[in-house]
């Protein structure tokens, strides 16, 4: 191990909280120039938050950051850039309607001497040189970014960051959209940066990648550092234990395992490029967990069962009737509801009131000849507000003035008012405070006990394990395993999801 003084980057006692929840607690992290340092951990462990603090994208609550032993202040990305810290995140920061060259050279486009017009030949040559130098040749610098595929955009994004010759390069899940060939080129580039004594901080879910490229791995769990290890001195299962090793807390209601009659049967359901040949069943009053990494096809699968993006082949049967699912209204009429993962994007109408949102999916049910029965509407809304304990209990309040947890309850209330027999819940507790989480778990349990079949899609392992009677794991658009409650453990679910043998 290196001595303190040799550490190029030191982060001491970093704390950060969002909406009252502590995301990073007292994190100490150090790394040296010329190394590839991987940061591993489950979803929500705080990896990205830590990196965003380093790159100035968000501010820390407390703690200090030292570069070469001197305290630095990274209040915004601009200051980070000046200190030679560049980050490539999962979301792209490219400007789609500009060319590759313009994006790489953004803010430093060469101009002609006389009239200060853009010197296009020079700009394109400069961009091409940069790509050549870092081994990404083959990209047309003249094409618009919006015309490129996702993986090529990722390469441009990396090129843009590397073009500034950063001292510290942060790569947040760079491989998620890259092909094997592109990944190889990225690794070649990373090794070259290492030789030029840059520090590369590498975040990835894929453990085999981490073991191949990293010199050291720091594991985060629940916003705390578990430890730092060298790949040569450890193995993947030890690392997984470090990432997840935790007892299930008592926040999950007790559920008894028993055989249940099938309500929903999905058979050989496929949609090109989204999920492939999926078959499973869901029983009356059962909670079945769906676990998988981001991009494994879980969201597309539930959207297909709901008719939002119809499947291209296969069938869905509800109580032994084959359903024709071409639109959400088909699914709702049959008694299937979907709580989507992003409530602000497609779950809520923020400009409308709580009552309007709760009744939105049941307008046909509470009207006759297209005219609303206001008494029935208000009674239904009030009932759900009470059942789910939504605060404040004012149906006329605009949704945008509610807290995230109460907003999520409103979305759930909307689907419950449709009296669905099958609830598809996609990340139902995302962005929700702990207290509301516990309430939501209790509500799910009560619903299941009253006979509703629940399909719970979640990236949070403890939640999947704590709530599910059975767990299915998805990886790369396929179902790769079924686990009973007794069989399921954090290790084997994560291993199945990541495609690793433990």
């Amino acid at each position, binding site marked *: 191990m290196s001595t303190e003084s040799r550490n190029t980057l030191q982060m001491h006692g970093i704390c950060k909280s969002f909406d009252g929840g502590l995301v990073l607690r007292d994190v100490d992290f150090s790394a040296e120039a010329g190394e590839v340092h991987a940061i591993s951990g489950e979803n929500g462990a705080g990896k990205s938050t830590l990196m965003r603090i380093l790159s100035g994208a968000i501010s820390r609550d407390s703690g200090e950051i030292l570069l070469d032993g001197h305290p630095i202040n990274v209040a915004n990305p601009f200051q980070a850039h000046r200190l030679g810290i560049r980050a490539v995140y999962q979301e792209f920061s490219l400007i789609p309607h500009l060319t590759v060259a313009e994006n790489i050279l953004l803010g430093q486009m060469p101009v002609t001497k006389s009239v200060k017009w853009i010197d296009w030949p020079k700009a394109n040559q400069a961009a091409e040189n940069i790509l050549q130098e870092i081994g990404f040749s083959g990209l047309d610098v003249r094409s618009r970014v919006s015309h490129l595929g996702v993986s090529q955009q990722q390469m441009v994004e990396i090129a843009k960051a590397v073009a500034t010759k950063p001292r510290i390069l942060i790569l947040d899940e760079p491989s998620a959209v890259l092909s094997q060939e592109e990944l190889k080129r990225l690794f070649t580039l990373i090794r070259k940066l290492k030789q030029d004594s840059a520090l590369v901080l590498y975040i990835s879910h894929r453990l085999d990648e981490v073991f191949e490229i990293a010199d050291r791995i720091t594991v985060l769990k629940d916003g705390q550092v578990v430890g730092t290890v060298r790949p040569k001195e450890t193995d993947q299962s030890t690392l997984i234990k470090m990432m997840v090793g935790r007892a299930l807390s008592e926040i999950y209601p007790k559920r008894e395992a028993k055989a249940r009659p099938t309500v929903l049967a999905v058979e050989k359901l496929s949609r090109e490029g989204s999920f492939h040949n999926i078959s499973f069943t869901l029983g009356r009053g059962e909670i079945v967990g769906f676990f998988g990494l981001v991009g494994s096809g879980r969201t597309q699968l539930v959207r297909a069962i709901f008719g939002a993006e119809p499947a291209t082949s296969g069938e869905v049967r509800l109580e032994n009737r084959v359903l024709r699912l071409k639109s959400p209204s088909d699914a709702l009429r049959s008694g299937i509801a979907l709580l989507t993962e992003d409530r602000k994007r497609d779950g*809520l*109408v923020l400009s409308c009131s709580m009552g309007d949102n709760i009744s939105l999916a049941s307008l046909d049910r509470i009207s006759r000849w297209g005219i*609303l029965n206001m008494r029935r509407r208000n009674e239904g809304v009030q009932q759900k507000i009470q059942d789910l304990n939504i605060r404040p209990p004012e149906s006329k309040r605009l949704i945008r003035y509610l807290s995230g947890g109460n907003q999520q309850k409103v979305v759930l209330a909307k689907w419950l008012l449709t009296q669905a027999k099958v609830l598809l819940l996609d990340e139902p507790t995302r962005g929700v405070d702990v207290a509301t989480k516990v309430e939501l778990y209790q509500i799910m349990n009560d619903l299941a006990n009253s006979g509703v079949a629940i399909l719970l899609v979640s990236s949070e392992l403890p939640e999947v394990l704590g709530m599910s009677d059975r767990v299915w794991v998805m990886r790369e658009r396929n179902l790769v395993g079924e686990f009973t409650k007794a069989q399921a453990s954090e290790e084997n679910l994560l291993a199945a999801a990541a495609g690793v043998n433990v």
Partner: protein
Amino acid sequence: MTNLMDRLRAMGEIPLVKMSAERIRRQWVDYSFLGAFFLLILVAASMSDVFFSGQNISNLLRQIVTNGLISLGMLVVILTGGIDLSVGSVVAFSAIVVSGMINKHLPLPIAIVIALSVGVLAGAFNGFMISRFKLQPFIVTLATVGTIRGLVYVYSETPITPLDQSFRTIFSTAIFGPFTLSILIMLAAFLVALFFINRTTAGRAIVAIGGNEEAVRLAGINVRRHIILAYIISGLCAALAGVLLASRLGIAQPSLGAGFELDAIAACVIGGATLGGGGGGGVLGTFGGVLTLGLINNLLNLFNVQSYYQQILKGVIILFAVLARRSNR
């Protein structure tokens, strides 16, 4: 008194929880608009003897019928997050068609129904193009402004004077007080709209579409059908305005209605509507907007102010209204 308060609370009219500062501010803006409105009337009444005369009130009300109906249709479209620039051309189309049909000796009701169908067709076309091909409402209706105006000139290059006298008198004869049939039709349209937007599934769906189209689609509601419906309502309202305008003026010019869309948008915006979705705006607010614009026109006419100054003042008022509401979002 306490008894009354309790009963109001039980009805859910007065929330027990304290109102948020946000809501208080929003209501303050609404009330201050109302206050400004009455101040305007007061100023008008004190400065002009004619203002409160039956003749002037009747004039004022008859003048706002056109903008009132167009604004109502515009509001429905704006609630979906869209805009309808083609209303002025539709006014001209229906005015000239109803006049032409009357002069072909068709019975009055049939002539009117044909003219209204023209508006429905125009609206259906706008709505279909916008919802089926996901085109921008601004661009689609900008294109139909010209197309419909062209059709009007194809129908008749010269003004048409409806020869049937009963077409002129039926809408403009006072029924009680200053209220003519045309005024009553407009007021009835506002009442119907109030009910439609707040108490029907289609009305609530239209309001929600303006806030989040995808959430509405996922709630099992046919978004495309409701967007088409909104533009049909707008076309129908504009066509009705055209019929009543032809009746009031006694002549239908092919150039009629140019710029009417601006007054309608202005009325909606003064009433609290937000262009491009995002909620706000309602039937009562829009009525207030229509009344305010009508009042200003009326006053400036009474004081013989040139119409150029009227336009300047109208622009200032619209900007002021938008500014006053800006802090609310």
